[in-house]
């Protein structure tokens, strides 16, 4: 199957996903998510976003290494 | 046939195949192969060379939803054929001479 204008559609799909995701995140934060994200040492490994020392961390640890890690 | 001679003849044959009307690759092969053996890989360099020497020009025409390359003989190409025919007259004279001498023996 060939999708016409594949790149254009991929661009639109990517932007829609980013937008939807940030809306969900925004909604979560508006509903008092700040507090809920503060994680103690009991944070399960599959939690990929949390707040640590006042910084938001988005990270995926895998086999003692970090596949992805940003904090701001 | 001597390969150098054949090369020269093929060139003129290709030009001659375009004398009446513009033509395209496969048609040229069909026309020329009636008198002398020619294949795609021999035609290609000849067409390219004749185009470079401006004996023919090309243009593309849409044909059954694809482009087909057509070749057109230029004035220089016509002169080329005429020169060849002129030259050939003297070659024929030489051949007649050779034939004559051989038959005398």
């Amino acid at each position, binding site marked *: 199957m060939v999708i016409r204008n594949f*790149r254009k559609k*991929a*661009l639109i*799909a*990517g*932007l*829609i*996903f*980013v*937008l*939807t*995701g*940030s*809306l*969900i*995140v*925004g*909604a*979560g*934060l508006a*509903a*008092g*998510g700040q507090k*809920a*994200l503060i*994680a103690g040492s009991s*944070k*399960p490994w*599959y*939690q*990929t*976003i*949390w707040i640590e020392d006042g910084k938001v961390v*988005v990270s*995926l640890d*895998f086999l003692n290494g970090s*596949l*992805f890690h940003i904090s701001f | 046939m001597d390969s150098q001679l054949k090369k020269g003849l093929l060139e003129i044959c290709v030009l001659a195949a375009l004398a009446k009307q513009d033509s*395209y*690759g*496969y*048609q040229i*092969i069909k026309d020329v192969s009636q008198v002398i053996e020619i*294949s*795609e*890989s*021999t035609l*290609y*360099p000849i067409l*390219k*060379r004749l185009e470079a020497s401006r004996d023919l020009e090309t243009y593309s025409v849409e044909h*059954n939803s*694809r*482009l*087909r*390359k057509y070749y057109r003989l230029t004035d220089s190409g016509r002169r080329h054929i005429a020169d060849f025919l002129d030259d050939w007259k003297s070659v024929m004279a030489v051949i007649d001479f050779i034939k004559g001498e051989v038959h005398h023996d």
Partner: protein
Amino acid sequence: MTEKEYLDALNKALKWLPKPEKEICFNYAREMIEDRIENGLPEAEAVAQLESPQQMAKAFLEDRGSLKFKFSLPINSVMTVILLILGFPLWGALLLAGLMILLAGFLLAGCVPFICVVMTVSLLFVALVSVSASPFVMVSVSLIAGVIQLGVGVMALGGLILAALGASLTIPWFKAAVMKTAQFLRSLFFQEVSKW
């Protein structure tokens, strides 16, 4: 052999030709096959009437002429050779510096597609884990944290599509830049000599 197989084989045999030239040869062969098919020949027969792709490629390549090393300096004079050898520390260093700058440029330019690929892969994992684990976070940590994680996962999914798109755009662009430079460098030292 089908038309496609023939043309693929021809393409492969001509892979070292620059693209525009390859296109001319390719179109020529395709036209020859398609004109035969139009003339009523079955596809296999039309292809069989042509020479093999390798023979065809050979004819194209031979006609194109061969590469010949060109050296414009009057190397035949003894003086030039001596000067070349004595001057090596100077021109050798300059040449090396030039090559290094070129290499650095390529490394820098190559970073863009490289980063795009790395981002695609790592965001893929982030998206997978974030989205699929968000229900568990909702249960074990808190509902809102799980929702936020779901949002992060969806964002990562979008980011990964954009990064993949970036990679698919920049890789051919980078490849073309490398090819062009290689051709330019080659043209400095080699020239094409036509056979005819």
